[in-house]
């Protein structure tokens, strides 16, 4: 095999810098970092300030990831600023860290219900969900490499919203979305913390099942469903994935009141790892 072919196949290694200095050698990565900083600024995540004497700042670092198209070509250079959450002290810097997820039983129950009623199930996804979480704790982070504000080198950022890597980011996000749903008139189920319902005299209108940053929405009222999507899009950056076809490894087909789901992808992985393709049926 010619060496050029080998390099061609190793492009993943080439395409992913491990630290800031490496990244600065490629223009695409600099742009990616700029866009990340911009989205953080736009989000109102932090404010430059002096570090109070009794506080300690937490380090941040850049994480780089190349996203590929299915054909192997580069889709996007992604730079993400993460907080070194391991430096946080439990009880001081953060309390609860978890975000509840929907149980599979609940999701299947929802499918059964949708099947019986002939509802459609929609799949929505919140973009960079954790950045929306509002922080209750006082947290300071260093200025990121390459984006230190000239003349203010000694200052730090005080966080108002969560960043990736923060221990409490999932929790902060859950509190945020929970409050938001309740403002929209949803009622949280007492028996399942991730199930939200909207009801009126005519019965059940909308049901949401939340799975961290993804949600399944279904219900009898198509107009309300559209309204809900718009309301969500006003507040969060959303991906509208339309009618659900793939969720948590479950594939799902909607054939007029008929639903099916099975783990197509998962199976592929299994059969590959055990050489099953050669096994006789």
């Amino acid at each position, binding site marked *: 095999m010619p060496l050029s072919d080998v390099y061609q196949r190793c492009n993943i290694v080439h395409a992913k810098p491990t630290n800031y200095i490496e990244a600065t050698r490629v223009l695409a990565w600099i742009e990616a970092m700029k866009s990340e900083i911009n989205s953080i600024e736009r989000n109102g995540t932090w404010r430059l300030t002096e570090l109070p004497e009794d506080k300690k700042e937490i380090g941040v670092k850049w994480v780089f990831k190349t996203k590929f198209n299915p054909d192997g070509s580069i889709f996007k250079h992604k730079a993400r600023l993460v907080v070194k959450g391991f430096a946080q002290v439990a009880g001081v810097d953060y309390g609860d860290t978890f975000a509840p997820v929907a149980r*599979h*039983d*609940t999701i*299947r*129950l*929802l*499918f*059964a*219900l*949708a*099947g*019986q*009623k*002939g509802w459609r199930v929609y799949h929505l996804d919140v973009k960079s969900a954790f950045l929306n979480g509002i922080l209750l704790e006082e947290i300071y982070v260093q200025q990121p490499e390459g984006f230190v504000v000239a003349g203010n080198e000694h200052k730090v950022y005080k966080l108002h919203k969560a960043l990736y890597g923060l221990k409490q980011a999932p929790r902060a996000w859950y509190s945020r979305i929970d409050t938001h749903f309740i403002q929209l008139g949803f009622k949280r*189920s*007492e*028996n*399942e913390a991730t*199930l939200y*319902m909207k*009801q009126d005299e005519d*019965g*059940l209108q909308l*049901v949401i099942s939340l799975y961290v940053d993804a949600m399944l929405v279904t219900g009898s009222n198509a107009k309300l469903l559209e309204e809900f999507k718009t309301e969500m899009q006003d507040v969060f950056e959303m991906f509208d994935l339309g009618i659900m076809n793939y969720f*948590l*490894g*479950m*594939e799902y*087909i909607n*054939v007029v*009141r*008929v*639903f*099916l*789901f*099975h*783990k*197509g992808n*998962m*199976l592929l992985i*299994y*059969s590959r790892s*055990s050489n*099953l393709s050669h*096994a*006789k*049926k």
Partner: protein
Amino acid sequence: MTTTKPDLMFPAGLLSMFMSSPSNIHMGIAKRVLKYIRGTTDLGIWYLNTGGVKLIGYTDSDWARSVDDMKSTSGYVFNIGSSAICWNAKKQEVVAQSTAEAEYISMAAAANQAIWLNKLLVDLGQDQSSPTELYCDNKFAIAIALNPVQHGRTKHINVKFHYVREAEKNLLIKLHYCPTDVQLADIMTKALPRSRLEFLRMKLGLSKASFKEEC
């Protein structure tokens, strides 16, 4: 994988018990299971409109299955309409001294799940006015639950399992006897011959992706 394939719950549970020190026998079983999966990739659960959201539960057990500690396995399945929504297979925590006791213990687990599912359905506006029906293929276990007699053979049963009695008394669940032939939870607790497996699989709503589209 078991999230969409209730027919895999039993082998998956069995194999995972030996994860820490597997032998060649387990490898053989694992391969057998993988072959089965490969042959059934197009199976999925169909959720159809059967005209009503009614929860029905089945509970079963396999007495003293584990040869190492003689503990039993409990399993349950809950169906809405013609499809399974919830299932479980688990080795029991205590040693059951009789088949009826094993059934009774698994009944308690199923009762807890039934009550939770019932609450969820009520939250979703699907009123379950009548108690959730729970089917069990052991008459003696039902008798223990309905009637605190037979003290001599049941006095040692742990307090928490007697929750079934209370649930039945408060009309949260309703226990019924069903013959083993139509016991859907069978698939959760034991390895079955092919025809039986295929029959139960169908009863749980599992069928081919292409099959219903033609109808």
